[in-house]
């Protein structure tokens, strides 16, 4: 299963400057693993050694935050878009 992955500016240097890449996997965890395998500079940036999402990384499948779904086990399918965004302060 191949999905589109969107990356924030600060991670683009690790993927040759691209803002969108494709990666394979049936779950968010598999997609992120595939991404790290192909772009080793991302190692440790997305998932911690303990296997959890990095504290300041939010991952969305089609706009929905996976932390409030099945986390790294959240399923992805053909045509889905996975977006990675840094956690930042919201306007207030």
């Amino acid at each position, binding site marked *: 299963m191949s999905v589109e992955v969107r990356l924030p*500016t*600060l991670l683009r240097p690790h993927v040759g400057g691209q803002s969108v890449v494709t990666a394979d996997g049936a779950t968010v965890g598999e997609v992120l693993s595939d991404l790290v395998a192909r772009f080793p500079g991302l190692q440790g940036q997305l998932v911690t050694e303990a296997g959890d999402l990095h504290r*300041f990384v939010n991952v969305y499948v089609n*706009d929905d935050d996976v932390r409030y779904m099945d986390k790294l086990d959240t399923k992805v399918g053909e045509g889905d878009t996975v977006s990675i*965004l840094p956690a*930042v*302060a*919201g*306007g207030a």
Partner: protein
Amino acid sequence: MALYDSVLALIGNTPLVEVSTLSPNPAVRIVAKLEGQNPGGSVKDRIALKMVEQAEKDGLLVPGSVLIEPSSGNTGIGLALVCRVKGYRLKIVMPENVSPERRQTLEAWGVDEIVSSPGSEGSNGAVRVAQRLAAEHPEWAFLYQYGNAANPRAHYEGTGPEIWRDCPEVTHFVAGLGTSGTLLGVGTYLKEKNPDIKVWAVEPPSGEMVDGLRNLDDGYIPPIFEDQHGADLLDFKTIVGPRESIEWTRRLRDVGIFAGISSGAAVAGAAKCASRIDEGVVAVVLADGGWKYLSTGAWTDPLDEVVERAKRTIYF
């Protein structure tokens, strides 16, 4: 109606209104809490008053005290009103890429100083600058809305009970995520009343606003969100982009509501929620009115142009 002894007594107790004609699912009602009806024009009047009152109780404020606060607009405006009435001075750190009306409104209230922070750092930058200035000036009071328990408490004691009083049949609560104060306070209160109630957070895409971030360790999670275990409280979190936000801001006019762009985002989230459940009642917070966004052309300019402008503007 009654006679009130101060405008500050008018904060809160906002109307909840049926907007179910906007629901994409006929089995789901949507009710909207009109926070733009607060005297300072937004939901943030609630936390401004609660944080100042708490600081007074704690002895942090004396007549003539100077306060500093990071704000993309509404908290600053709420504090400006409260400080003006109570005789405190106020400095606001605001990202440079907010709508001009937010700045003008602060100027109109006569705040001491508006310090600009880099637009490319979004609200993160405003927080960072305010923290630095507060550290340099220990004589200033720093209420720090992102880390002040009085922020969610304003909603736990005010917004939440009001929604429960006016609509106990509520099944879902939807609000924008900024400091997380509204979601924490209302969400906690409603779940105490009915543990089956689900809490949905809506956030804008951080997009170009975080280009100034150098690495992930510059990320930020509001301390109140962590302290009060926000991740366990929320049931769902979704991004609503500028196009959808503006489309729904326009649609709100069909039910007679002239609201700000973050309200459009929140209603888009409520509609998404309604489309994904079988039946229920979704309560959504409309954080402010449309007045401060007239210059964005949100209602009148071609949609594509407005969307492009919104991508570079903090409207939450």
